[in-house]
């Protein structure tokens, strides 16, 4: 049996071993996710193998997958940051009859049991609508894009751009490529502010990396002022980490989209166990405020809710950012 292999962590639970590969170890969001995984595994009695980490490197992910399979994993939860390059691995896993649940990203090709993901296009859309409304349909907005090679970043950028174009043509958008680097974002914003001192909105696609640099820069330019002040810069962030909530409470930023790290972990494990148990799912509403949609033949996606957090609901205890560390 595989249970005596050190790869299977002694979580006290029996049953088929389920493997989790974490996409990276250097981001706040994913580290929160990583913390929820063992917690939910314990809660639902899952035999969790020691999670591996692919350090944002698709080649490592493939290697990890192979190692986990040889160690006897019966289902694998992964979050391929490169959604194209995982195709062959998915085919191999399908041949070995090992179900896969992907989290946060949807592979471009290949079969998976379930995609657990929030709708990234909705993030962009929500941010656009919030800013458009606050700015009254005119003004100048800086958008910190992620990386062009990230599907989530691309989805957010595209939805944001489409929405701005259709609904708020009076708003000029400066889209800054940042490769998810805070320093790049800071430099771009600094340059843009010199060029257009009247910038009055910022959309950052990842609070974890952009929040502190942005606030630091605005602070040094004395641009952190209450919304009532005409100099106020409206900021929408994305992720929902505790620091963003603090900033909202202090009035430094105005909103963020809470990307549900807890639900990602919970439902990823839920579907992995369900797959091992032989359950199947159909498109439609679920019992947890979300919708399963069939995105293409053989791929179902559970689109978890990603609430927009503003001053009004920032203290909602249901938000994962408010549970962490408590």
């Amino acid at each position, binding site marked *: 049996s595989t249970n005596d292999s050190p790869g299977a962590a002694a979580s006290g639970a029996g049953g088929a071993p389920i493997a989790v590969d974490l996409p990276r170890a250097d981001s706040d969001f994913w580290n929160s996710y990583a913390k929820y995984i063992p917690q939910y595994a314990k809660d639902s009695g899952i035999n969790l193998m020691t999670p591996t980490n692919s350090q944002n490197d698709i080649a490592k992910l493939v290697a990890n997958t192979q190692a986990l399979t040889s*160690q006897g994993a019966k289902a694998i939860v992964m979050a391929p940051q490169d959604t194209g390059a995982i195709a062959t691995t998915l085919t191999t896993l399908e041949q070995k009859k090992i179900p896969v649940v992907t989290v946060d990203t949807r592979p471009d090709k290949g079969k998976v049991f379930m995609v657990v993901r929030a709708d990234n296009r909705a993030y962009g859309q929500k941010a656009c609508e919030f800013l458009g409304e606050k700015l009254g349909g005119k003004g100048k907005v800086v958008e910190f894009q992620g*990386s062009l090679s990230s599907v989530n970043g691309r989805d957010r950028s595209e939805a944001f751009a489409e929405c701005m174009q259709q609904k708020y043509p009076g708003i000029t958008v400066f889209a800054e490529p940042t490769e998810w680097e805070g320093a790049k974002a800071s430099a771009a914003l600094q340059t843009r502010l010199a060029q257009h001192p009247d910038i009055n909105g910022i959309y950052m696609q990842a609070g974890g990396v952009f929040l502190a640099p942005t606030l630091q820069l605005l602070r040094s330019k004395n641009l952190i002022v209450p919304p009532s002040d005409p100099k106020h810069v409206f900021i929408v962030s994305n992720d929902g980490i505790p620091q963003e909530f603090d900033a909202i409470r202090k009035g430094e930023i105005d909103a963020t989209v809470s990307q549900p790290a807890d639900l990602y972990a919970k439902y990823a494990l839920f579907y992995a166990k369900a797959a091992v148990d032989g359950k199947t799912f159909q498109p439609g509403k679920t019992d947890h405020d979300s919708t399963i949609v069939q995105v293409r033949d053989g791929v179902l996606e559970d689109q978890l809710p990603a609430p927009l957090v503003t001053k009004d609901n920032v203290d909602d205890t249901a938000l994962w950012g408010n549970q962490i560390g408590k």
Partner: protein
Amino acid sequence: MTTTLPAGEMPVRRRAVPRLARMRDLALVPAIVALLVVGALIDPVFLTRANLVNVLQQQTELSLLVLAETLILIGGRFDLSLESTVGLAPALGVALVIPAASHGLGTEWATALAVPLCLLAGVLVGALNGVLILRFGLSAFIVTLGMLITLRGVQIGITGGQSLFDLPPSVMYLGNTAWLGLPLSIWVCAVIFAAGIAALGWFRHGRAVYAIGGNTDAARAAGIRTDRVMYAVFMIAGLLAALAGLLMTGRLGSIAAAQGDGMIFKVFAAAVIGGVSMNGGKGTLFGALCGVLVLGLVENVLTLAGVSAQWIQAVYGLVILVALVLARLTTGRAQD
């Protein structure tokens, strides 16, 4: 006027050295054995055929890059841009043949051309590096660093940062086929390494690379067409990088915009741990191959051991440092 003193008989003062040189080649064998033992103790899965084949297959692309880099390093030069060629060459080959709807360039040339185009792109990149370094006399380090950025940028430019995944079967073939139960890519690497070891060890042009790296002026004085040989080396390296790109493409089933990103550090680590000198003229392909294996086994063992995600990178780095110190102590020579 000047009279020089006679000297007595000239004693043979030093022992034959090749034995040491060969030892340097084998310096990593104990490390490899140790890793195999540790791996087997950590998880019985480790020594299974399937796991070892996986380790080998995962290292095929890296090993081709290391081969390419080793050739260049032996010749006394430097190429950082190989990792970008791994992405750009297949991307270009594919983008030229697939329809614009699949993020192609719209040229839609015959699908059969994808592989030749990819390899040609690799050769051209190598040639361009050669021109800038040999012809213009620019520093190899900085030229290929510029190339690294530019080529990656070009790939992002032509694909818009998207992964390409409507790939013609010919492009997938190499990285995605098995012969006699072993992935084709392992066969390909084995053949290329055998050819490389033979060429560097027993053929005049291979030896010329050592001579050039050891002392370019001396090589030129011995009638070696040093520039011509180095152009060939750069182009072969580009070709190998493109081939590595094809293997990776077939293995992963698509071409990501970041394909190959960050590999160059590993390439150098493998080569130098394997005893290849950064100063040229020294090192063997066998040693470099051992370096690749060490890195691959370390990664595999760390994964199987379930080292926590939080510390795995630190452990990996430490293991490399320790391997270096051990290689230093076993061969007893300063590294360069």
